[in-house]
């Protein structure tokens, strides 16, 4: 069986959209200018619900979480079987199994590779707070929740199929420790500092082959300044209502300039995520060690 799913996985606000933009420009953009609003949704959010409903015999809206979990591996397997080529799939969920069937939600034999992006939790906290229009303290609490999944909403139907994101370190560890996938883990900070070096490595490890000049052009075309300018001018359809901007700062260490992440909140993040932070060279003082 062919493995057609290439996952771009991360905790939210860790560079997932940027990597998708570069890869989609290479895969589908040809020589034309590529807009942020040309970006496919990678079967995330509402498109994931629509994909599920188009494949499963029952609608996700009518299923309880455990029933949904039993269907999801089968739905992804069917999606993989019907794909004619490798397809990028955006994932903010942690790597996990169906509680009822024990199957991995994303069947490993359907997944070519996983590009896993990790970013210093201090920057994630600030970026997530701005994105979600919540306080940084609330963002830290969300990131530190010990639950395997965000609480299921049983009183409403969101457009997005409910993601199971987990805590920041739970998400990181689920993909990078003893997962059954071919995982290429990349720090956002390294990618930001050396895109022309890291992207080709990432692309090759994920099983794609592109000319070096095309990769360089795709990176140039998706520079943060350009993305911000296009969002200001034309908007970005993935920006949720209430969010001020999707492409906001992007700079590593931006948390230092914003002041909301005080000592107490930094200590809370370090306390709750120490092991995963150390594994990726993220120091408690915010500095980043080379790996």
């Amino acid at each position, binding site marked *: 069986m062919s493995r057609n799913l290439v996952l771009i996985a991360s905790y939210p606000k860790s560079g997932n959209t940027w990597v998708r933009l570069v890869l989609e420009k290479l895969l589908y953009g040809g020589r034309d200018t590529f807009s942020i609003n040309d970006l496919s949704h990678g079967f995330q959010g509402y498109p994931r619900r629509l994909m599920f409903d188009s494949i499963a015999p029952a*609608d996700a809206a009518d299923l309880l979480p455990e029933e949904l979990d039993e*269907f999801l591996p089968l739905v992804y397997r069917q999606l993989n079987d019907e794909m004619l080529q490798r397809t990028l799939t955006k994932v903010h969920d942690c790597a996990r199994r169906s509680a009822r069937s024990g199957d991995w939600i994303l069947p490993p034999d359907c997944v070519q590779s996983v590009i896993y992006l990790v970013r210093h939790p201090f920057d994630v906290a600030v970026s997530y707070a701005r994105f979600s229009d919540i306080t940084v303290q609330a963002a830290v609490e969300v990131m530190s929740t010990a639950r395997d999944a965000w609480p299921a909403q049983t009183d*409403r139907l969101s457009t997005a199929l409910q993601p199971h994101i987990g805590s920041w370190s739970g998400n990181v560890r689920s993909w990078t420790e003893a997962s059954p996938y071919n995982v290429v883990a990349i720090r956002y900070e390294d990618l930001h500092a050396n895109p022309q070096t890291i992207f080709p490595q990432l692309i090759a490890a994920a099983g794609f082959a592109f000319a070096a000049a095309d990769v360089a052009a795709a990176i140039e075309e998706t520079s943060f300044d350009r993305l911000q300018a296009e969002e200001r001018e034309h908007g970005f359809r993935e920006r949720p209502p209430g969010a001020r901007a999707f492409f906001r700062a992007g700079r590593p260490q931006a948390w230092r300039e914003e002041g909301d992440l005080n000592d107490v909140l930094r200590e809370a993040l370090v306390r709750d995520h120490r092991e995963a932070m150390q594994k990726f060279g993220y120091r408690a003082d915010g500095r980043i060690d080379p790996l």
Partner: protein
Amino acid sequence: MEGPVPGVPDAQIRWIEALPDPPDSARRGPKLWRAPGMLQFEVPGVARYLICGGVTVDVAPFPGADPGAISLFAHQEARAALIHQRGELPLHACTLLAPSGTAIAICGHSAIGKSTLAAEMCRRGWLLVADGITRVSMSAVGPIAWPSDSSVKLWKDSCKNLGIEPAGLQRVRQGADRFAFACASAKSPVPLPWIAKFSVSPVAGFEPVNQPAGTRRAVFAEYVYKPRFGSAASEGAQTLAHLVQQSRAYLLRGARSRPITEIAEYLELALQ
């Protein structure tokens, strides 16, 4: 739950002990099997459903399954399979009858807010024809919609937004805060001269789809409910083509962005 299928009065739902796995050759998707004149699917922990010849739905519940859940999938997905088998169109739409006597099918995928809008319109004196999945067939007078529901399924937050107290309402199924809200409903099939696509937009509005019939058909093609339940050359698609050709097609904007009362006012104005 045994008895006639809502909206398909000459078809019957029957409870049976068990349903075996169909042959692998009939597999068409996850827990879904289809062969000429037959479709079977399973909802884990709830039931298996066998739909045959456009006239019978055999339901084999799993032990301990919630009767509300068993009924939900029988009345939605299994009914849609029946409609496909009859060569008709299961349209992913709430259909309403305005006080002026004109019916409109409001098409939309899950979570777009069709049922919430239907509840609001019914509070304004409209009649419910179908909630979620509308059976559309062709007749000598053109497309007709069949009445199938006397309540809409509302999530708790929709009840709150509409000022409806859910405490006295029946849950659609155990484990979900989703309730059946009773509405005045149509009792016989109605001509369906209007069809609208309910779309997400920051601005509410109601405007005609001024495009050639082929393009209009493409706009509405995604609202054939569960196309995998039909054959490749589904007659349902032909019914859709007739429907779009013979109906006035509109875009209803503002789903999930604008207050439901504002959207309702556009509808009232259009169909007064």
